[in-house]
């Protein structure tokens, strides 16, 4: 039974890497948001499973945050913002899909090598989960670097953060995981707001609410 437990944990971590690759493959914005929602959902499942096998009930809170905030609220909010601001819905890429996949493969290989050599004395199953987590972080970074679209860079950053949460929950007994998750989520919210403030200022040359109201056409 112990073997099956760890196999499921591995499977969920591996699925997270797979969904990161899936994010790299997308070239339309709404599809990318759906894929990110899937990413956060798989993370929530993985964290919940870790909570079950480590008997750490505070991790259930982290899973709930991942599910509610990242899988539901942020994708929906981003979807509405994209519609409102009329952001270009096709993602321009710096490198093609094939090259991005090859680079992603190289990054996964690199993180395997690094993690499995550095943590030579630790429990073998935890090491492989850490290697997967590092892969997700690197793939998130790759996404940020190879996309020209602001929303896709946000999604890349959030995937990166998902990888960090996976690493934190995979290592048994790490303290303050819940607090760190909340802090990261607030950080992300501020980054999203900041990016859109930039966009609004670029588009309308001001962030003054009175001036924006005039553009909305409600006041005189």
């Amino acid at each position, binding site marked *: 039974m112990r073997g099956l437990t760890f196999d499921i944990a591995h499977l969920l971590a591996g699925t997270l890497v797979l969904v990161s690759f899936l994010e790299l493959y997308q070239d339309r914005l709404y599809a990318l948001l759906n894929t990110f929602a899937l990413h956060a959902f798989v993370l929530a499942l993985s964290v919940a499973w870790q909570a079950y096998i480590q008997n750490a009930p505070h991790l259930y809170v982290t899973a709930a945050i991942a599910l509610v905030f990242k899988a539901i609220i942020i994708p929906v909010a981003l979807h509405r913002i994209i519609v409102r601001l009329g952001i270009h819905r096709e993602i321009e890429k710096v490198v093609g899909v*094939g*090259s991005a996949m090859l680079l992603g493969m190289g990054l996964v*290989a690199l993180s395997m*090598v690094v993690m499995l*050599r550095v943590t030579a004395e630790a429990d073998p199953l935890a090491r492989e989960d850490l290697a997967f987590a590092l892969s997700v972080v690197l793939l998130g970074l790759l996404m940020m670097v190879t996309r020209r679209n602001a929303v896709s860079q946000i999604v890349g950053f959030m995937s990166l953060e998902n990888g960090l949460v996976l690493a934190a929950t995979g290592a048994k007994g790490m303290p303050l995981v819940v607090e760190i998750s909340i802090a990261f989520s607030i950080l992300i919210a501020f980054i999203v707001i900041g990016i859109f403030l930039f966009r609004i200022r670029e588009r309308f040359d001001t962030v003054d609410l009175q001036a924006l109201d005039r553009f909305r056409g409600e006041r005189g």
Partner: protein
Amino acid sequence: MVLVALGGTAALMATAALALTFAQAARARHLVYGVCLATSLVLLAIGLIALLGIHANPSVTTLPLGIPWLGAHFRLDALSAFFLVVVNLGGAAASLFALGYGRHEHAPRRVLPFYPAFLAGMNIVVLADDAFTFLVSWEFMSLSSWALVMAHHRIADNVRAGYLYLIMASFGTITLLLTFGLLAGPDGGYAFDDIRAAHPSTTLAASVLILALIGAGSKAGLVPLHVWLPLAHPAAPSHVSALMSGVMTKVAVYGLVRIVFDLIGTPAWWWSMVVLALGGVTAVMGVLYALMQHDLKRLLAYHTVENIGIIFIGLGLALAFKAYGMAWAAALALTAGLLHVFNHSVFKSLLFFGAGAVLTSTGERDMEHLGGLIHRMPQTAFVFLVGCAAISALPPLNGFVSEWLTFQAILLSPQLPSWGLKLLVPAVGALLALSATLAAACFVKAFGVTFLGRVRTSAAENAHETDRFSLAAMFFLAALCLVAGILPGAFIDALAPVAQGLVGDRMPVQSNVDWLSIVPIAESRSSYNGLLVFVFMVLSGVLAAWAIHRLASDKLRRAPPWDCGYPEASPATQYTASSFAQPIRRVFGSVVFRAREHVEMPSPGDTRPARFTVELHDLVWDTLYAPIAGGIGFAADKLNHLQFLTIRQFLSLVFAALVLLLLVLAIWP
């Protein structure tokens, strides 16, 4: 034994000398090629006898030729015997082919003397047992093949090809000279026995490996040293092209195997990474280059590069297993590589003979001027098809067996402890799989555009079947492809003494396995039975044909093909070689060759035709060779000034050199 072999090569040299004098005589061609055929068969028999162990020990001899205190050592052990078989099988087939093909040669004086010399040179390289004999015969082989490449020197392309070949061959020989110099050490022990006894340090051994890879690899066609191969191989007459691609590249592989597996001693593990990486890149680059070609012989030459890559992958795996002491796995990988050496020499020679037959029959080498030859040259088309199927690794022919064995060797590699190898071997496996599939695509293109479809030009319209000597050579090689595919166990067992000598172990005895299957490791793991697969396919086909004959209607009617409503479509509307390769060019070529397509449409009302341009950049040439050539040109220009100095300035140069040497002598501790 080895003395008999040497006698054979002496006979070849004598023929060469005679041909020099009597080349224009009426029967000269028949005499020369006939003697070559007979001698090659004798040498083939000697090689087989030595390989199958009928004569127990490696036989050695020393002749009082060459350097006085060294002499000329010759040795016939298992590895030499195997390569003697490969060389002389190719030589015999080429001589048989040339008996018929040679009548179309309009400059026999430039071909007939050098052909036996070329064969003799290759045989002596394989038999050489000391560095001096090896290098002299290697150079002799290069020079005689260069003379054959320059046989049709009125064509400008051939002259350029010959020039590049001479440069690359000299470069390779210099590197090999350095290799043997390092191996022999300061005492000058050039005999291979002395080199085997010496134990070089690790840095020395590493330098020897790199230099040997450059030297032998450039002759074999490793990327990035392959640039001369696709220019020089097609320029020579077709039977010589077959020898150069099918046999001379294998002699280069022999040189590498001899140096790296026999003379250096125990390898370090990272050497295999270099060889594997080079092999993988060579395989994929070679086949991608081949897919972009529409000249039939150049396509075949680039394809040789791919197969050399596959051989090097097998050799790299053998090195890795040998470095970690897994001798049984090393034997599997080495057998896979060497079996591919044999298979490739057989089907590549077959394909070049077919290209030669097409060339003499139509006068065209460009596939896009041919087409529909299957109706006009049915027998050539049939054997060419067998060659294409064999090289695409389709069961039950022989190409599949060596590829299958290489895959089985790759599946053993997770047991290697090194991290670098754990990451490199799956990548190389993917490259090998990719190159195998692209090779099939390449040969669908080569056969389909040349032989199938409708006739594109009048040259193809007037084609006729070739003579019976050429056909005999081609049918013999095609039959050998089938036999090697159906009975691979015999060939694997024949290679066992070679593996035993080089890596210390052998594959399981195949003749003990039931039903003539081959079993690379153990019965429970994997097995393959070429004969049964062949029998099953034949039975299923016959059963289907019989059932159709009984149950279905047998009426048949000829009609024009489906033309979508546009009748009388000209043959120019069918797919050409470039159009066939367009999807692959777009997928792979846009990255590897920076391939771009431009269409220039004339404005409305203008009656000029539209123009379609395909742009391909050879990145290896642009990044490696063009800067070096440019640099040499620049240096030569600057140094040219030295020709125009006054007498006083020349004297001051001499004076400065003298003073400098005296200074060095004074300061050197």
